[in-house]
């Protein structure tokens, strides 16, 4: 079933998506069933013509509440990068850090980024490894990440009514941190969720880009982000499989954008950050 402007069920033609070179900066397969979630996401990956997807590995340093899993990771560290070996042409990886354990996290940076294949760091918004990004524990970690020229994805949500967990970070807090590390590139995951406030909070921080997933496909988001930040500061994320290609790719392909801006958002900016152009 296709309609009259060349799209199919809201999707642009496959040739256009291939030409756009879609790279997903926010892929969320469960650590408990990575293989299953890869299968579950397969159709979305195919019809979205997603070239690459970046997941966030737990590396056995206390970033989950699953003691058995943490122990397993420590005893079998090769399992951390097993997905990269299983899907070498499809996956990219970053690592979760435990901001409550700076020393171990610094070791993990060396092991998995300096000496491994991981490209950056994910700071979560909840769980045992998370703290607000303004906490002093972040400073030595960010300094080392900057030395390694790696990317930081910081979970953010501006929730109406206030923070929802002790490790919750706001876009405005990320802006504070980014001002202290002007040479480091940060990605503000979910554009702060409540994006009208999130975009404003990071607008004056040129070293912050916003990531597009994690909230309903609310109309006007991309248009405001492009207007306030420029298309160079927006990166696509799918949040698959716990959200849908419809919600997340729909935000980009449904927005009124010049082709070049769409290409930057869907992959060009992320490749630039990862130095993969």
């Amino acid at each position, binding site marked *: *079933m*296709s*309609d*009259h*402007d060349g*799209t*199919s*069920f*809201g*999707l642009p033609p496959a040739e256009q998506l291939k030409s756009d070179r879609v790279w997903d900066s926010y892929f969320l397969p469960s650590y408990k069933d990575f293989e299953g979630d890869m299968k*579950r*996401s397969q*159709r*979305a990956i195919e*019809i979205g013509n997603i070239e690459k997807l970046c997941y966030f590995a737990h590396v056995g340093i206390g970033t989950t509440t699953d003691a058995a899993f943490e122990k397993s990771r420590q005893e079998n560290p090769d399992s951390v990068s097993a997905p990269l070996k299983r899907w070498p042409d499809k996956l990219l990886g970053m690592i979760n850090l435990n901001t409550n354990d700076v020393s171990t996290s610094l070791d993990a940076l060396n092991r998995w980024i300096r000496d491994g294949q991981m490209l950056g760091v994910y700071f979560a918004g909840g769980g045992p490894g998370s703290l607000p990004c303004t906490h002093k524990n972040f400073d030595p970690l960010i300094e080392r990440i900057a030395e390694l020229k790696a990317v930081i994805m910081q979970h953010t*949500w501006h*929730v*109406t*009514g206030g923070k929802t967990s002790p490790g919750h970070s706001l876009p405005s807090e990320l802006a504070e941190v980014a001002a202290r590390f002007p040479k480091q590139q940060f990605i503000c995951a979910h554009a702060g*969720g*409540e*994006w*009208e406030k999130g975009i404003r909070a990071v607008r004056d921080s040129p070293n912050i880009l916003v990531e597009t997933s994690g*909230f*309903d*496909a*609310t*109309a*006007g988001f991309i*248009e405001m982000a492009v207007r306030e930040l420029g298309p160079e500061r927006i990166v696509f994320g799918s949040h*698959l*499989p*716990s*959200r*849908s*290609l*419809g*919600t997340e*790719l*729909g*935000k980009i*392909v*449904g*927005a*009124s954008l010049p082709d070049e801006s769409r290409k930057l958002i869907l992959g060009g900016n992320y490749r630039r950050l990862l130095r993969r152009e």
Partner: protein
Amino acid sequence: MKFCHEEIGQATRGMMKRRTLIQSAIATGTVATLSPSAWANETELDIIDTNVSLFRWPFRRLPLDETELLVTKLRSLGITAAFAGSFEGILQRDISSLNNRLASECADFTQLIPIGSINPNLHGWEDDLKQCVGDHDMRGIRLHPNYHGYELDNPRFVKLLNLVADAKLFVQIAAVIEDVRTQPDQLRVADVDLTPLIENHVGRIQILNWRPRGKLVEALAGIPNIHFDVSRVDQTDGVAALLKTIPESRIMFGTHAPFLIPEASLIRVHESDLPASSLSLLMNKNAKNFLTG
């Protein structure tokens, strides 16, 4: 003026010509040919969107909040008919006026089927319903219980369901309009608690914008006259999973446009890789059946 079941029945019997035209067009898949505004030659696809709204969202301008832009976008996506409520019905209290505007606007875009707003917490709401039926020949009404401040076990809500059923209209209940996490600080409303529908479910009812979860969806799945839309059903396999829980004859396509980007819901359906028979029900036939009762 008092408004009783008999009066609604009389109004229903006095249907305006427009309803007959729309009903006939929906049944035959020729809605586009009725339009005065360039919807000709659009019969290849016949997607019915059960969930759009006209006019201004109160808290920001939306890219498609002009009706002409919205219907042009819908047409480009193959959507040939849409149940259109009004954003004005969420906060405004002059219900008669806003329903007049909705009916007038839809008269210019025949592919839009006007769905009136009713607030049973306002004095004289029965007259508003009578106006929807008698003056505007509407096929259904849309409720916003969380914005209007009542629960679904409220006697006025139950009375409303009965009156609407007697008039052979349907009821759409907007369980959510906006994620509670992104609402304005000073105007926060929780999602509608749908639990009382297990007991109170007279007539044709469609729940809009709900993200089904937990035991409640299983309970509602067992009630044949309660229907659903897919506008906020998320997860990559969310629509397919919903079809395993709820009989497929009771799930209808909806976009929640222009608040949400209409492509999102379409892509999500595509992503679910449904068999053709299920797709036909979801995108078209269920809405036709719901509309015609």
